[in-house]
Structure formats: C-alpha cells, structure tokens
C-alpha cells in the first residue's frame, strides 16, 4: 500500500539532495551547519521510525541548536537571471501555466479516483493519505514534464528547490515543531487548566456575555496554541456544552460550528499558526515577520464580532 512511507521517502531524498548540494557549495557562508541541518532532516524523514523517541528528541534539539545559533544560512544560487527569465516567458507564453496545474490536477484526480484502485483486494493507495500521496505523485510528474520540456541542467530541480527553501530558512520546520509543542502541552494538561479558568468567569444571567466568553475563549486559546482544533475541545467542554447548550438550551450544531469559525479568526492573528502566517512572510521575502498577520487584523476582528452575534442570534431560537 502506497502511503506516508512513500511520501516521507520522497521528502527525505529531497532533503538529502539539499544537504549534498549545500556541502558542495564552496561559497556558502555557513556550509557545514546548513548541510548538517538538511542532513538531519533527511535522517528524520528516511529513518525517523528507527531512531526511537529519545533519538528523535535529540535530533530535534540538534536542529534547533543549528538554527538558533545562526548556523543555517542562504547559500549561493545557481539559477537563471532576469533577462533569461523574461526571454523564456516571451518564448513559452501561456503554456508556462500548464505545468503549474499538474500538481493541483493530480491532487484533485487522486483524491477522488485513487480510492477505488485495489490490487488483490488491498487498496493500492492508503485511503487516509490520498491527498498527500497524490501531492507527491503530482510533484514527480511535474518535475519529469518540466525536465523533458525545458531541458534545464540535471541538478536544477534540487538547486531551484534549495534556492526557495534557503529563502524560507528555519521557518520550514516551525509548523511541525509547533504541532509537537501542542502534544507536549496536552501531556502537561494545559487544556484542562485553561478550560477550568474559562469556566469560572462566566457571568450569571447574561446570554450574550456567555456567548462572548465562548467566542473570545475560542479565539484567544487558538492564538496561544496556533490551532483552533486544539482550542475547540477545551472551550466546548468548559463553556460551550455546560453553559451554552445545557444551561441556556442553545442548538449544539450552531454553537459548535460557528464556535470553530471564531477560533479560525484567532488563527489569522497569531504567529503560532506558522504555516499560514510566518512561512508565507518568509516565502514572499517580507522584511516584517508579522506582515501577513497585520494584513489580517482588520478582517479577523470584525469577523470575530460577527461570529459572536451569529451564535447569539441563531442558536437560541
């Protein structure tokens, strides 16, 4: 069955390729540290299951030590210059957009069509991981098509990927590390403590204030955790169910569905949601790490107010 193992092998080989090219990059300002960073990440993806929990933990500490001491840096780029690109854009025209559609199209087809493929009764693709597996397939197909069509140097896919990932830098493992922090927080019982605190500040007798505590709690706890999924069970158990649904007879579907969206407003406001807010700032080469969040504040706050009013107005009819 083709599943996560396939995806991790593809990613691990790519990271190993970045490590080797970094090592070969004689003009790289932090050659050894950067190569070690990509090498360790490759090790995690290719052999993480064999390292054991403590081994993986030490690997994480090493990755953070390299990045935290400034040993991960941008290397020299080997790519086309602006004149080459403008000429290529003129020459190829709108056909350039077609290979850009290969990955989304494969993801789309894979999500719907791969489900039914079985060999001797065993599904060929892991049904739970269809989107990620078809992403990997799409990437492989797109690289093959681009190599055959444009005939760049053989190392170009790895070199061009390295150029982009060097612009992102340490932020590349930030989302994965935040997810791990969430697991440690859960182990430490943080959710229960926060839920307990939120549950004690519900004012008596005011339906609107109770809704407000719930939506602000969803947004606020999402801002802390970076993920509305982590906030939802905590706030539902502390306020949503006991107060809004049981005591005030609110519609559980409305409270839960719109409560989750109040949490999403928090996601727009926090650097902890690195995938959405910090990584794109790096990817778009913005000087201000928080520029994307700042562009979202004036959308998130009115929407949080609207979600509060929606629960208040719709859930108690």
């Amino acid at each position: 069955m083709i599943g996560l193992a396939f995806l991790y092998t593809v990613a691990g080989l790519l990271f190993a390729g970045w490590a080797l090219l970094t090592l070969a990059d004689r003009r790289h300002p932090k050659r050894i540290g950067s190569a070690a960073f990509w090498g360790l990440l490759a090790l995690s993806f290719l052999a993480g299951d064999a390292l054991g929990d403590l081994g993986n933990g030490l690997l994480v500490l090493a990755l953070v030590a390299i990045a935290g001491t400034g040993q991960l840096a941008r290397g020299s780029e080997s790519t086309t210059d602006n004149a080459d690109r403008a000429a290529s854009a003129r020459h190829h025209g709108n056909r350039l957009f077609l290979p850009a559609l290969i990955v989304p199209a494969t993801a789309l087809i894979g999500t719907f069509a791969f489900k039914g493929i079985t060999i001797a009764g065993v599904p060929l693709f892991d049904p739970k991981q269809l989107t990620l597996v078809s992403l990997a397939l799409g990437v492989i197909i797109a690289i093959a098509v681009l190599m055959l069509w444009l005939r760049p140097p053989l190392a170009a896919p790895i070199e061009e990927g390295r150029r982009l990932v060097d612009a992102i830098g340490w932020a590349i493992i930030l989302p994965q590390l935040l997810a791990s922090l969430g697991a440690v927080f859960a182990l430490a019982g943080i959710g229960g403590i926060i839920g307990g605190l939120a549950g004690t500040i519900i004012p008596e007798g005011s339906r609107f204030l109770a809704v407000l505590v719930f939506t602000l709690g969803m947004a606020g706890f999402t801002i802390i955790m970076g993920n509305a999924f982590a906030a939802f069970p905590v706030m539902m158990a502390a306020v949503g169910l006991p107060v809004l649904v049981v005591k005030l007879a609110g519609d559980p579907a409305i409270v839960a569905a719109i409560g989750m969206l109040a949490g999403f407003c928090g996601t727009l406001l926090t650097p902890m949601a690195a995938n959405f807010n910090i990584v794109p700032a790096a990817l778009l080469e913005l000087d201000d790490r928080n520029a994307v969040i700042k562009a979202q504040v004036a959308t998130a706050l009115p929407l949080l107010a609207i979600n509060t009013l929606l629960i208040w107005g719709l859930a108690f009819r």
Partner: protein
Amino acid sequence: MWPLLGIAVVVVGFALRFNPLVVIITAALTSGIAAGLDLPAVIAALGKAFNTNRYVSAPWIILPVIGLLERAGLRERARTVIAGVAGATTGRLLLAYLLLRQLTAALGLTGIAGHAQTVRPLLAPMAEAAAAAADPAITDEDRQKVRALAAATDNVGVFFGEDIFLAVASILLIKGFLETSGIIVSPLQLSVWAIPTAIAAFLVHGFRLLRHDRLARRKAVAK
C-alpha cells in the same frame, strides 16, 4: 497551574523576537518539567510528536516544481498577463481569487492552491504588477504590503470556505466531540452553519480589498 509557564515562555519569547524554534523548545521543556516529567521524558515526548507530525513538513516537496517554473519565467509571464487585462487592479484581482478560493475550498479542494503553490509564483507577482501599473512610483514598502495582502487573502479564502465541505477535518472533529458527549449531529447540519460566516468573510475582506484600491489610487494621485 505551573504548566501554564510554558505559555508565558511562548508569549514573552515571541514578543521579544527570539528565534521561534528556540522559544518553542524552551516552552515545551518548561511545561513538561512543571507538569512533573523528567528531562529525558520531555525530550522523548517532543521527539515522538516530531516524528508523527512529519506529514506537516512533507508538502515542501513542491518547492522544486515551483523553482523550476520560476526559472522558466512563470512569474514574469504572470506579470505580463495581468498587465494586459483592462481594469485589473490589485483589489479586484485579489477579490476574484478570494471568491475562487472560497468556492473551491467549499468543494473540498483546499490542496489545489496555497502559499507555495499559487501565492508566490502567481498571485503575488500579479497583485504586485497591478499595483505597479496603478502607481509606477510604488515604494518597496508598499510592494511588500501588497504581497502580504495576497497571502492574507489566501488564508481568509481557505479558512472560511473549507468548513462548508462535509468531510473536512474540523467538521469531523466537531461531530466526533459532540458524539462523545451524547449529541448526534450530521456533518450537513454543521456545514450549513459555516455558510453565514463564509458570506460575512467575503463581504468584510472583499470590502477591504476594494478599499485598498481606493487608498492606493489616492496615494498615487498625491504623488
């Protein structure tokens, strides 16, 4: 109460702009030890979670594709195309993208666009080209603001579109949570209640996008 110290570490660390990776490790160690775990146990818990969460970083395998396309001039082509569309402004372009992103996410197609796939190679250069056409003397600071707005538009589109789709993770999480509390709801009952917020998100963010055009025009005239 002591495990909450980890949250304090995160808040202070981010506020003082320390390297976020170091802040996170410090927060994890702080909360773990405050909760009574010993140091190797916290490190092992962190390692276990890092290993099981590898799928979060796996989508980076798209970078070689984007890099190859950029090498061949995709961003330049995107700029040329938008310059040839009459009446294309930053705000209108982003508004069209917002609508498209919300509608496709509502159909469950969240993976077909994103910051690496569409924003960096296509949307941001197009939005920037439109902004430069409206104001040839645009500053680098304003260019960066346009790029940030493009990323923000992608986020708003996917967040407030995806919950209309029945089988999305958050809907399944809600259904599962309510079920363990003895409340049975169907995914459809939940996803219809994502529609009012989706419309509100389109109106609020759409208003801001069109307002961006008006402000940019005024700024260009003032120059």
